[in-house]
């Protein structure tokens, strides 16, 4: 229970003015533009879009600025903004196979058709601080080489030919696609709802869960079958237009995790899959999403499910950092009446405890 705090308005208003002042920092230092945040803190913007579940670089940059770089606060702001807009509909499913690939790697196949392209990656950097970046020195022009126009088939397609990997779940037109923003989560949750939940789930939480499966808590023997980053076309079938309208391109990261599966009474041994797909360049997130997606399929695949990452109610109920921070941070709100009640209870319990002290002593002595 909460009580209204009277006369708090002035304090709150002044606190917010002070916040704005602190946010701006030293006025001698130039203010950040949204373009600077969007261009130079691009991965923070990507994360806020991904977990804010709203693709809009400019709004995400604004949220980061307003939140003083607190990404969970920024995600919260983006989610709140989203609620102010009407929804026009659902896109056509994006075709990641037709992605304009800027990075594509496989840890399972060295010579996969279409090749491996590293793209802009932190991998193989030495993780030494680069003091040159303290200034604004010009950077080298990237190398260009002629493009080999090889198709880049999905890694899973290579294994599918021999039946060595499970097929993708096929669309069922009679089943509507679950949507967490329309109906609250209930259990057991289908894979579409689980994936939507994971796509907007907290990267840190999913990273820890994915890591736990690697360390033995629900082991799934994963290989990074393929990770690809690039631009995909977004299309929307607008009734008034009469065909699927292309609206532009967005950046996405996809991860196909390949996992061992020993088979069951009814299924021959074959590889299974976990899937990750996120807004922007979010490789760690896409990988952990795929790991957790696979772990959550334990029930479906008839595997023993006793690790945290395999417990869908535990995972899906705690993955959303906006919900999580809301509930944790609400502890800051006045709980004066609750606390007074608890205080009275503890005092009464202590009085009872003291009143019966002699009795307990007697029992103890008798026992000895």
């Amino acid at each position, binding site marked *: 229970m909460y009580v209204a705090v009277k006369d708090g308005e002035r304090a709150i208003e002044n606190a917010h003015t002070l916040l704005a002042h602190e946010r701006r920092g030293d006025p001698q230092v130039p203010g950040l533009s949204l373009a600077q945040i969007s261009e130079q803190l691009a991965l923070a913007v990507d994360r806020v879009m991904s977990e804010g579940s709203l693709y809009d670089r400019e709004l995400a940059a604004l949220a980061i600025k307003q939140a003083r770089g607190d990404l969970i606060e920024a995600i919260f702001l983006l989610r709140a903004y989203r609620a102010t807009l009407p929804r026009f509909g659902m896109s056509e499913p994006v075709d990641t196979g037709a992605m304009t690939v800027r990075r594509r790697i496989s840890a399972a196949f060295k010579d996969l058709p279409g090749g491996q392209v590293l793209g802009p990656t932190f991998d193989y950097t030495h993780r030494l601080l680069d003091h040159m970046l303290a200034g604004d020195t010009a950077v080298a022009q990237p190398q260009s080489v002629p493009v080999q126009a090889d198709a880049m088939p999905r890694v899973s397609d290579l294994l599918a030919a021999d039946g060595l990997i499970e097929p993708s779940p096929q669309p069922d037109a009679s089943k509507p696609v679950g949507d967490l923003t329309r109906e609250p989560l209930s259990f057991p949750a289908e894979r579409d709802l689980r994936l939507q939940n994971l796509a907007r789930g907290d990267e840190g939480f999913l990273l820890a869960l994915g890591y736990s499966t690697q360390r033995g808590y629900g082991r799934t023997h994963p290989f990074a079958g393929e990770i690809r980053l690039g631009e995909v076309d977004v299309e929307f079938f607008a009734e008034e237009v009469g065909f699927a309208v*292309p609206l532009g391109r967005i950046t996405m990261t996809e991860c196909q995790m390949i996992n061992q599966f020993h088979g069951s009474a009814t299924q021959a041994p074959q590889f299974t899959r976990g899937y990750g797909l996120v807004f922007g360049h979010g490789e760690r997130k896409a990988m952990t999403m795929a790991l957790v997606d696979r772990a959550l399929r334990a029930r479906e695949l008839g595997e023993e499910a006793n690790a945290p990452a395999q417990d869908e109610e535990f995972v899906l109920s705690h993955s959303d950092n906006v919900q999580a921070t809301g509930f944790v941070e609400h502890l800051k709100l006045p709980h004066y009446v609750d606390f007074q009640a608890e205080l009275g209870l503890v005092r009464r319990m202590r009085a009872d405890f003291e009143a019966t002290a002699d009795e307990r002593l007697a029992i103890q002595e008798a026992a000895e």
Partner: protein
Amino acid sequence: MTTAHPVSLKTDGESGLAQHAARREAMAVLAGSDTGELAALLAAAGELPAHEELRKPESGLLMLRGRISGDGSPFNVGELTVARAAVKLASGEMGFGYVLGRDHEKARFVALCDALVQTDRFRPLIENGVIEPLRARQREARKLAAERTAATRVEFFTLVRGEDDK
């Protein structure tokens, strides 16, 4: 907006499908353009016909769908901001603009171009004066990005481990 109208009759049959394809391609180019550049090209294209707003530009959301494992059943990934607008030329053609983001002006320009490319009179003007320059620039930008990506291709035969020599 879904009621039958004379213009939709033209989109039936094979020529209609071809027209859809052409409009879709033009929309993709226009949606990928910079609003300032699009405005400048439209302004330079010359006198444009009178048109009315069928739908005032507005912002909204689109739920983006992906497919499980890339090619399986669909699921909802997250939402995108979208701006849309619709215009109608005095001659009856209706044009629609849907673009990612919240740029109302851009949605209106795209809608106007979409209406104009449906007219025999203005199609060449818009195609040559607006869409082709944007298309050429986008093609160039994608080519450069693809070449820079290609430079990071791993050539595994160059990676020989020392112990393999023994």
